[in-house]
């Protein structure tokens, strides 16, 4: 539903070309430890829910979290596809949509300096 924080967040931050912005970056621990290439899933209430990972055989423990039989015609992706993975550093800092303005919080600095 539009107007939910996770929807506004996704729509506004995804415009920065870094990808689909997840309002809830925390992995759903009962399903996976962290997002991986080849994950197939969906986003619900800002969380990414992984269903399975297509780099692995269906019998792999990480694909058995839902204890379900495999989808029809399931075959993992060919391994050569993952030979070219580009790794890079993602710089710390602030990422915000165009309408957001930023300024030093002088009140905060004063409170620190004065020891309040």
């Amino acid at each position, binding site marked *: 539903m539009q107007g939910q924080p996770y929807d506004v967040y996704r729509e506004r931050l995804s415009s920065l070309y870094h990808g689909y912005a997840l*309002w809830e970056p*925390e992995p759903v621990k009962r399903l996976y430890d962290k997002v991986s290439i080849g994950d197939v899933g969906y986003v619900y209430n800002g969380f990414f829910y992984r*269903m399975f990972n297509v780099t692995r055989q269906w019998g792999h423990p990480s694909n058995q979290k839902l204890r379900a039989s495999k989808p029809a015609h399931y075959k993992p992706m060919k391994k050569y596809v993952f030979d070219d993975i580009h790794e890079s550093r993602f710089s710390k800092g602030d990422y915000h*949509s165009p309408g957001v303005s930023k300024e030093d919080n002088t009140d905060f600095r004063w409170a620190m300096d004065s020891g309040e």
Partner: protein
Amino acid sequence: MGNGFRRVSLTSSRVRATSGRIDFLSFSAEGFRYRCLGPGALLSLPRDGHREEVIRTKAFEDYIRDNVVSWFEWSKNQRLPVDAIEDLILVNGYTLVDSWAAVTFVGRTGSAEISLVAQTPDRSERSFEFPNIQGDVTQHCSYFNSVRFSCPVYSPDTDVLCCKKDNPSPDQCVFIKGFRAKRRLFWTVPIRAAAEPLPDEPDDSREDGIQVNRVPDAPKVGSPPVVR
């Protein structure tokens, strides 16, 4: 810091606090105020993250096109909350970080404002505070749910929740890249010669196709990346 400002503060270590303030002696900290008129969003990362992305994406496009229908049927059989084929994502890239603060300016009440203080006591510990929130703003940050941490401590002198994280490896995914697909219905109308006999089948026939799109799709509000 008054005027009914709500303090929501989390830190990954025990911090000394008196009279509702943090003792900053051992901390480096910086605070900024963010304002937004209407809907907006902010992600603040105090430390570098790690990004991985598959370059050979054509294989992903082909793979999701060939399999998404069976995945969707499978999800329905599992009674998962997947309403449409285009809800499914095949991930080909991600950005992982170990700490973050996220803010949504929901935009229902015009202008909104929030202050954010990021503290970095040392390399392994960091925290956020939101000491000033005005307007229609929703915010949260990593480590907000203390159930993940080994020794949550609440100091009665302040409203600062202290937590310690078990595993410092980055596992928080702030951005996903991938592909999704949707059914595309289109009608084909064969062109026939005037003298051609009437066909047994109707002239036009419907064909189903799968259209693959990148996740996210083309942005609705365009702007180059903003990093400060």
